[in-house]
């Protein structure tokens, strides 16, 4: 009996009902030599000890949005003042449970997305399709390696990680059922667990699509792509995609390319769907804007057909499109939108139903068919109006003014607007002076959620009024976004690893998330420009990346056009859509691995401990809004990366905020000196909401400080922190002295001044001859300082139990 050895299932003659499956045939040279760490495929309590370390220091803070619970039939229960409900749960624990549920939903979103992509791509390309992220990426799935303990080489390998993640979701969600956890700390631990899973899921999704769709592979110099209303050629049929999963809309590109008709259409879109369309099309797809542009785009009447997939899409999309006569093709099984399933219909029948308006939309979960139907529909609709789309929010000025004149300044809109925008004042001003400028100004801040229209007793089309008031600016907006590059190269990590860990690169600022900005969108650029100029590494993704591509300066240029795309000091790297956030976490992990040679495999706590103490990376989400964003942030937190959120982030109800004054909580084991040493409170928060851009800037600089900074690194970090505090807060920060370990940490230019302050205000002893600090710091700087807060890590490197 002989058989050839390939992977697959084999039937053997004469042996009924026996199948021989040949497992992975692995080249010896490629064998993964790394030893398995302590926690591969961790269950929901395996990393509880690590979480409790974090939670002990970064105490959960709860700001209840509702102080009651009505999830079970014994309720509703009043939980105010931390009272207990019928099941015995108190308010804090109830909030922690809700946070856990939200993180589960967030992780499930990326997971549903990843699973669908993966199954689809494996069906198309086979399990053996190799994971090749280009020559510069050898550590190609740092999160999966660290968490799951495997090294995926093929799409099929990703399934193993996927199945583990699915299992963990069920177990964590289980814990949120009535009558499980009693302590909010345990719910936080579970929220962290599922959020770590979320990072694995994002990595699966993005790796799968990069390799299968040949998206840019860790390329810093990816092309720029057009953004804004102004870049759409309205003389072509316009196909608009919205959502997150490129698998449904990519076939449109494929089909048009095959037909040689790409140039006959405009393909544009919103949110991550188009983000990733630009990655597969090399910049051919165009970006209307972030998630908050949905009603702007639909009510502008520009789309000739709309393609929706999943997540963050308006739940009234069909209604909104229908009102404008735009046919809708819903594609994802997560959002069938109540539409008839047209999977089995012939293409002509679908096109006909949509073009005649017989149906306002169809549910078409067959990507290839979407590829054919969408252009046909767009073309037919385009033919009807001949490029002369009449509707531009209002048919004419009279209609606009009729709406404005209806307003009685009852302020119902103001009291329901997420930003309490003073629509009443804009309307009143316009009524009195015929000047639309106050209304136009609102457009810069409006997220076009439409709640104002729901509240208006006069049924004023407020969104349209606002958009029409800023019509020319909005319609002519043009910008450039650098297409998502995907992972960070190993070589880049090698270059920046040391300066980051030592502190000479003052920090990595990762601006990610949604578009619920508290202020005009341009504030995002203002914040990040500060860090680009100061040669921090700035990374971005998702709607933040899109927004950055839409804000131009006086020269008409976006930040992308002025900044290289490297993961390097002074660079601005756009990694891609939401799921590409995994590359940011991955970069932090790769610093520990590639630069510091820490083993990854199943070794989460050590890596997170390394990141917390050494990698000065801070997440920043200026406009977070969704459970996905909550999961992403919480996943970063577990990895030891602090996250700063805009003020709306306070509505997530829970933050992780340390207290500088609890001195007993700020310590590490120092492996070098074999001792437990007090440390400066750095970073002193894992999740904190700021109110203004000024505050955001200072907090970001502040939270980049790490115990492991060298003197030079600390000096650089403090220089920026102090300068920014002076610039934006008007003086030195209150806590700068806590971060001074020796005179070498002090910013050079201010050294004398600061030494004087340390002496006079803080009572430190200074040797003025040598300009040395004699007494005062929490601890002295030690070049060999080797901090950890994990007993097992201490033991591993010190060879003995940690000191008490």
């Amino acid at each position, binding site marked *: 009996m002989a058989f050839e050895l390939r992977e697959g299932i084999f039937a053997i003659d004469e042996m009924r009902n026996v199948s021989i499956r040949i497992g992975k045939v692995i080249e010896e040279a490629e064998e993964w030599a790394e030893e398995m760490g302590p926690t591969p495929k961790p269950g929901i309590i395996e990393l509880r000890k690590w979480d409790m370390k974090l939670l002990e220091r970064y105490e959960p803070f709860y700001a209840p949005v509702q*102080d009651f619970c009505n999830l079970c039939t014994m309720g509703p229960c009043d939980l*105010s*003042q931390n009272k207990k409900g019928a099941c015995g749960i108190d308010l804090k624990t109830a909030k922690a449970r809700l946070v856990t549920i939200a993180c589960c939903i967030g992780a499930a979103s990326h997971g549903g997305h990843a699973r669908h992509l993966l199954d689809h791509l494996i069906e198309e390309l086979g399990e053996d399709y190799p994971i090749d992220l280009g020559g510069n990426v050898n550590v190609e799935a740092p999160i999966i390696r660290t968490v799951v303990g495997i090294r995926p080489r093929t799409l099929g390998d990703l399934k193993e990680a996927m199945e583990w993640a699915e299992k963990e979701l069920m177990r964590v969600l289980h814990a949120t059922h009535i009558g499980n956890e009693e302590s909010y700390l345990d719910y936080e631990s579970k929220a962290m667990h599922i959020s770590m899973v979320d990072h694995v899921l994002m990595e699966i999704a993005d790796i799968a699509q990069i390799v299968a769709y040949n998206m840019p592979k860790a390329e810093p110099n990816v092309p720029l792509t057009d953004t804004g209303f102004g870049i759409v050629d309205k003389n072509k049929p316009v196909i608009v995609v919205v959502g997150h999963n490129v698998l449904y809309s990519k076939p449109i590109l494929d089909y048009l390319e095959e037909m040689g008709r790409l140039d006959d259409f405009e393909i544009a879109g919103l949110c991550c769907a188009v983000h990733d369309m630009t990655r597969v099309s090399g910049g051919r797809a165009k970006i209307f804007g972030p998630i908050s542009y949905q009603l702007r785009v639909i009510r502008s009447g520009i789309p000739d057909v709309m393609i929706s997939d999943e997540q963050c899409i308006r739940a009234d999309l069909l209604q909104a499109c229908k009102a404008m006569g735009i046919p809708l093709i819903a594609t994802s099984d997560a959002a069938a939108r109540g539409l008839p399933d047209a999977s089995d219909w012939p293409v002509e029948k679908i096109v006909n139903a949509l073009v005649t308006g017989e149906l306002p939309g169809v549910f078409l979960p067959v990507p290839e068919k979407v590829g054919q139907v969408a252009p046909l529909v767009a073309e037919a609709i385009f033919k009807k109006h001949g490029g002369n789309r009449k509707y531009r929010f209002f048919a004419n000025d009279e209609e606009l003014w009729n709406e404005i004149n209806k307003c009685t300044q009852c302020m119902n809109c103001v009291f329901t607007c997420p930003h309490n925008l003073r629509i009443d004042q804009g309307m009143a001003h316009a009524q009195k002076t015929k000047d639309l400028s106050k209304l136009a100004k609102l457009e810069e801040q409006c997220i076009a959620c439409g709640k104002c229209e729901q509240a208006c007793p006069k049924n004023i089309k407020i969104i349209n009024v606002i958009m029409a008031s800023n019509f020319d600016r909005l319609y002519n907006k043009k910008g450039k976004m650098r297409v998502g590059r995907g992972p960070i190269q190993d070589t880049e990590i090698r270059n920046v690893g040391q300066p980051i860990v030592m502190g000479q690169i003052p920090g990595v600022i990762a601006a990610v998330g949604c578009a619920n900005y508290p202020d005009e969108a341009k504030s995002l650029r203002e914040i990040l420009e500060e860090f680009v100029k100061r040669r921090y590494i700035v990374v971005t993704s998702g709607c933040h990346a899109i927004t950055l591509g839409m804000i131009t300066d006086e020269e008409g240029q976006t930040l992308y056009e002025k900044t290289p795309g490297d993961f390097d000091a002074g660079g601005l790297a756009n990694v891609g859509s939401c799921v590409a956030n995994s590359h940011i976490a991955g970069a932090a992990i790769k610093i520990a691995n590639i630069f510091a040679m820490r083993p990854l495999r199943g070794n989460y706590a050590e890596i997170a401990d390394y990141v917390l103490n050494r990698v000065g990376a801070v997440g920043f989400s200026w406009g977070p809004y969704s459970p996905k964003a909550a999961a992403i942030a919480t996943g970063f937190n577990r990895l030891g990366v602090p996250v700063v959120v805009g003020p709306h982030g306070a509505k997530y109800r829970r*933050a992780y905020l340390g*207290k500088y*004054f609890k001195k007993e909580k700020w310590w590490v084991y120092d492996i070098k000196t074999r001792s437990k040493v007090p440390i400066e409170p750095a970073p002193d928060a894992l999740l904190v909401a700021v109110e203004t851009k000024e505050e955001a800037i200072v907090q970001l600089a502040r939270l980049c400080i790490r115990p492991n900074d060298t003197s030079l690194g600390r000096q650089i970090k403090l220089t920026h922190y102090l300068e920014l505090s002076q610039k934006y807060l*008007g003086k030195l920060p209150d806590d700068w002295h806590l971060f001074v370990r020796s005179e070498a940490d002090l910013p050079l230019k201010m050294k004398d001044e600061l030494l004087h302050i340390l002496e006079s205000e803080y009572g430190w002893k200074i040797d003025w001859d040598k300009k040395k600090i004699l007494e005062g710091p929490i601890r002295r700087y030690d070049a060999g300082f080797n901090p950890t807060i994990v007993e097992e890590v201490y033991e591993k490197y010190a060879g003995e139990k940690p000191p008490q």
Partner: protein
Amino acid sequence: MAVKKEDKYPVARRYQIADVQVSREATAVKPQVVVNLIKKAKHPVLITGGQLLKDEKLVEIAVKFYEKGIPIIATGGSSKPLIEKGVNPQSVVFTLHQVTQFLLDEEWKGFDGKGNYDLVLFMGFLPYYLSRMLSALKHFSKITTVALEEFYQPHAKFSFTNLTANKDMYYSMLEEIVNNL
């Protein structure tokens, strides 16, 4: 003491219609009540927010509070205009989020080391951000919170009524407080 309908004051309308809780809503108060609260307080403090960067009048009022001996915790960048006018805030770098976390801790000694504050006045915040912080303080502390805001803040212990339609009244109420301290 509380603002009544028959008064000249507008009704207390939540800044966000759906920001509802079971627990008590703030008592809408007139300036004199706030004056009395401050006078009775052992360790009062005013926390200023980022909206001072957009409203010079609030800066002016905060300066007056300071001059009357009320210490200031400046957040959101509000320290900058305050410092320019001679105020020395107790803290400038901590966010309201962090300050609230500190306030929730009974062991905290305050930024001045004199123990936790018993009366906290809030002025110049984004309403939704402040609302969450007031909710935390309502449910998990005994601190008396007073919102001196244009929008009525339901989760404070005491709040100005809703003054969004009449900014002059808002300013004059603030003036009335500082003038009577």
